[in-house]
């Protein structure tokens, strides 16, 4: 009897080992699905449709998995340390420098040189810049995003105000916010939280001639123009919900629930806003205001890149998929489906139609055209980044909580945070 048990136990152990081994052997099989990981739920359906066409064409199945933003970077970092990342995934300017510098991403330079589909000059140069390191390409531009002003038409009508347009300066925005704020706290003119950096206050800073990161990689928060912009934010806060409210509830949710008349938001939110009945019925989009002193209208621009794991067993399959995403047809399809604007020049006009009859999305494209709209000079500013941007970005969000609670401290917080940020940047070590 005991013999039998011993034999059984031995067989069990062997069996588990075999299963483990065969699972790792299977991974190199080209009929196994390529694993694509992204962080934006709004894009999954559209991207899966594009991947399904790829499977039809090549026979390689693709599985698109969505993670939350935090979980995404934890997964990717753990994968990078253990040498087992997903096959194909998104890169973001926050982290791209670090991943490229440490050779975690598949070098796409030779593939791009050999490709007939991907020609470097067809994509926005700003986005290439984010995914190029030492003159090698590690990511293919996927999309770009800009910022625009969302306003509640019903509230403007009720207050008898004209809708925002290209003639608006930041003073006009402030005056309208004041006029739209009701004393009983049921309605506020504007909303921004310290976490609304890229989509809100960075734009003010660059329009007013300031900066977040200077050209010599220092903090721009102590620049007098940056301080002027942040003091403008301080004035605007009088017509925003209390800072405690905005810290609990996102400004997009406050807009959706009819509590604020205006917010500025990125083009990546369109897919979400379109599905919200209240937004679709009451809101429309205008171009950002310009600053009357500089005459500039600035929109922060960021773009994702398609990247592949440096450790993948199937680099050719990964490149085939990335090339597919980057092809003119699929970039057009991405825009048409309303997934996002596309990084391939000239394909984004289709994106405007994805919200036809609901929102007028042209302001998002107008601000990207390097010319004048109304009286303001349009400026497209790449989202500020350094080697480890996340660190000072989250520190800034926490530091400005004090200034949000008491806007008279704005200048003080700007100056003290500039020192903190310079310190953090100085500690960044490139390999």
């Amino acid at each position, binding site marked *: 009897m005991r013999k039998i048990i011993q034999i059984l136990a031995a067989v069990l152990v062997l069996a588990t080992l075999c299963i483990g081994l065969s699972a790792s052997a299977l991974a190199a099989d080209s009929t196994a699905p390529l694993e694509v990981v992204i962080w934006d739920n709004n894009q999954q359906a559209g991207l899966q449709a594009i991947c399904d066409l790829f499977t039809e064409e090549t026979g390689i199945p693709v599985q698109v998995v969505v993670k939350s933003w935090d979980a995404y970077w934890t997964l990717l970092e753990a994968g990078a340390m253990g040498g087992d990342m997903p096959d194909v995934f998104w890169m973001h300017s926050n982290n791209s420098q670090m991943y490229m510098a440490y050779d975690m991403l598949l070098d796409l330079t030779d593939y791009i040189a050999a490709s007939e589909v991907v020609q470097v000059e067809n994509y926005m140069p700003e986005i290439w810049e984010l995914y190029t390191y030492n003159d090698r390409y590690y990511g293919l531009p996927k999309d770009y995003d800009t910022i625009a002003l969302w306003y509640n038409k019903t509230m403007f009508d009720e207050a008898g105000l004209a809708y925002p347009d290209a003639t608006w300066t930041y003073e006009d925005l402030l005056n309208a916010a004041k006029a739209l704020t009701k004393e009983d706290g049921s309605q506020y003119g504007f909303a921004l939280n310290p976490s609304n950096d890229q989509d809100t206050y960075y734009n003010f800073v660059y329009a007013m001639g300031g900066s977040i990161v200077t050209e010599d990689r220092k903090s721009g928060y102590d620049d007098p123009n940056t301080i002027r912009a942040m003091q403008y934010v301080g004035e605007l806060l009088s017509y925003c919900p209390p800072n*405690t*409210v905005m*810290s609990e*509830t996102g400004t997009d949710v406050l807009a959706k629930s009819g509590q604020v008349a205006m917010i500025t938001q990125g083009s990546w939110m369109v897919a979400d806003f379109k599905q919200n009945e209240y937004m679709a019925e009451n809101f429309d989009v205008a171009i950002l205001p310009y600053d009357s002193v500089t005459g500039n209208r600035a929109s922060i621009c960021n773009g994702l890149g398609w990247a592949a794991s440096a450790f993948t067993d199937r680099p050719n399959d990964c490149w085939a998929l990335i090339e597919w995403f980057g092809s003119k047809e699929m970039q057009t399809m991405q825009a048409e489906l309303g997934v996002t604007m596309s990084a391939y020049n000239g394909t984004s006009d289709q994106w405007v139609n994805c919200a036809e009859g609901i929102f007028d999305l042209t302001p998002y494209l107008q601000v990207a055209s390097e010319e004048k709209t109304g009286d303001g000079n349009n400026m497209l500013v790449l989202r500020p980044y350094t080697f480890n941007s996340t660190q000072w970005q*989250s520190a800034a969000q926490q530091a400005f*909580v004090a200034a949000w609670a008491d806007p008279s401290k704005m200048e003080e917080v700007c100056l003290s945070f500039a020192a903190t940020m310079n310190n953090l940047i100085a500690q960044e070590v490139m390999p």
Partner: protein
Amino acid sequence: MATKSIGRKPKMSPWDKSQLIWGWIFIAPTMLGLLILNFYPIVDTAIQSFYRTMPFNRGNVFVGFENYINMIADAEVWQSLINTFKYAIIEVPFSIAIALVLAVFLNRKIRFRSGYRTIFFLPMIAAPAAVAMVWRWLYNSQFSLINNAFGLHVDWISDPNIAWISVGIIGVWSILGYNMVLFLSGLQEIPGDYYEAADIDGANGFVQFFHITLPLLSRTIYFVLVTRVIGALQLFDLIYMIMDGTNPALPKTQSIVFLFYKYSFQNNQKGYGAAIVILLLAVTMIITLLQNLFQKKWVNQD
């Protein structure tokens, strides 16, 4: 076996030997799990706390006690430790006291007894993240059920003076059922004879509770106390799910594990994060040791 062999190595009979081997085989899966999933990471974390870690752990620099020296000077660390204690001071005593009373009542023969037991245990089977999300909206200053039902304007989770209590209440609510079940099982081990004898002597329910139930339940209470204190010191998911990084109440509410998460996974400072979590380990061990010393004074030893 020890009694049989004094002064020399015991000679094992084949039976003993086979017992020994099978004993090891049976505990091997758990032992392996503990070694690989618990013990190894602890050692690794302790080692990491002496390094300045680089991205992806490539080329970490040994810095001796630098992380610890920085930590001692870091007011945020001490504030977080205080926050964690504040949470524990709400969660542990209240969840034990209320659960004890509930357990005594639900140990009696009352109608719908199993129904009540199920209701109190339910929060335990819900995922902590889901519990936190529901409470986040219950507490929301603009749209919450609590504020709207009672016509209040309280910033439950963004007022630094209130937020820690709000979080503590969720903690008590979530763990109540689990403590109650442990107490129920403890209560069922107390022989009914004691209560019968007390009844005959004319002791009322109050006296019975303090002179029979409490002393005979003290070992269960001790177990719950030790495990709950350790659990409370590890507070993370409630804070992480309920409070965003820009919440004005966060500095006065964030727990030590939350701070560890922030440094290790958001700021890419794994060495410093490791030092913070080693501090928590030390604090937890000291508190558990103290409890172990003092338990002789109040825990029934028979």
